[in-house]
């Protein structure tokens, strides 16, 4: 998952590799769109973490059931 994220990021770096700062900069636009990307990535990470946690709880319940039997 981390490898996929890094590949996506590397592609975005390549696409957005222009690195010259202009004298008059809009302080919000680029940063806001960056937050969309960061928010998406973190949202995906949280989603997968919730799935992993869900399965961990199921496995724990199965183990506990097995022990009690």
């Amino acid at each position, binding site marked *: 998952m*981390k490898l996929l994220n890094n590949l996506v*990021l590397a592609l*975005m*770096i390549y696409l*957005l*590799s*222009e*690195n*010259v*700062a*202009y004298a*008059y*900069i*809009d*302080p*919000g*636009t*680029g*940063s*806001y*769109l*960056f*937050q*969309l*990307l*960061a*928010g*998406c*990535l*973190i*949202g995906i*990470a*949280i989603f997968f973490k919730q799935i992993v946690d869900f399965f961990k709880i199921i496995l724990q319940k199965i183990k506990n059931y097995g022990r009690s039997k």
Partner: protein
Amino acid sequence: MEEVNNSISQCSFRDPSGSIMVHDGEIFRSVNLLYKQQYDHLKQSGLYQILAENMMLVPHCEIMPSHLQDAIIYKILKPDRIPFISYPYEWCFSQLKAAALLTLEIQKIAISYGMTLKDANAYNIQFLNSKPTLIDTLSFDFYNEGSGWIALKQFCQHFLAPLSLAYYCDLRLHKIFTNFLDGIPLDLATKLLPLKSWLNYSLLLNIHIHSRFVNYYADKNQYDKGKIRNVISKKSLIGLIDMLYSTICKMNLNAKRKSEWSSYYQNNSYQDDSFRSKEHIIMNHIEDIKPQSVWDIGSNTGHFSRLISAEVPFILSLDSDPLSVEKNYQICNSQNITNILPLVLDLCNPTPGVGWNNLERTPILQRDKCTTILALALIHHLAISNNTPFLLIAQLFSKICKNLIIEFIPKSDPMAQYLLKTREDVFHDYSQQNFENTFCQYFFIKKKNLIKDIHRTIYLMINKY
């Protein structure tokens, strides 16, 4: 109120929500009608109370003169006094780190109360009882879920970038702040940071990728905020804040880091008896003059600042070496000493006035008057290393203090000899007699004590003017 309005602080003009005013030496903050709803929510929601109780936001009381009829001002606040205003380019690494973590904690708490920080400016943080505190009560705005954090870029420029540069490159890079009032530009930070920083996922995202987004969209006006809204969920925003918090927490300076000055007390000319004698003399002088505040200039890791801390209400502990100031700050924190503020200051090049009209952030030597200066093991560095004549040193000290406790180091002293080791001795005026004659133009010598077993003298001088 007219005379108060005329005293609007030179540093307070950017925010239409209110401004800082100075009247009879007291600081006030006006809350404009424009900000009425946000201010009322801040107080009524309980956010102000929880932050003020935990000293995360400077407490204030509301004052409302009966004769005030103003079309703009809603309320006037009198915040608790900050003993000394300092700026991020004067802080050590851990002070900036503490300020960054506080900003993130406040943002997270504010979101839970339906508010958000509309700016994440390092100048909004000051040190009160040696702990960082938010002083801009008007920094809060309503949080609309999905809208993200408008101040994220400012946070990255004011906190994340300088901390990363100090951590990965050099502590002295904090000086860049004096050239960039709105923090270190992300495109500059990404160029200066080493390749190692690209392996840190959070820095890769929040500095390197972020800078490219900012620059790519800098001149493009097609983006319509109305089309993309309510996309950044509260969970994602909290996740982003947690990621920044975790990244900054993990930036710990290596205990093995050393500088020329950080081991000074292990490598100097003092024997134990001489050192105790010096401590005894200084305590006597402090008990004699009972100062309200002391500036300990050239304090190194702050040993003498801590020695006198029980007798002096407030001590500014200043040194030019960032690592020494770092150690000083950490020791004060570990010993729970709250009346010492360690700052980075090079007296040969003190922090200047910066910003609009060079007054937006005032020069350090004009920010406050101090009662007493402690200048121990300093004069030979100023006079020999920096070639500063005694007259200029005396003039400077006489402008900023009433009392002066100063140690004279003769040329025969091993530390003075060390400074002269690799240079020609052109300092023919450097003598104790000449030192006394020059300083007597500005000070009375009240006491003069020779330190036991070494030929150093500590003077207690009182300003003539």
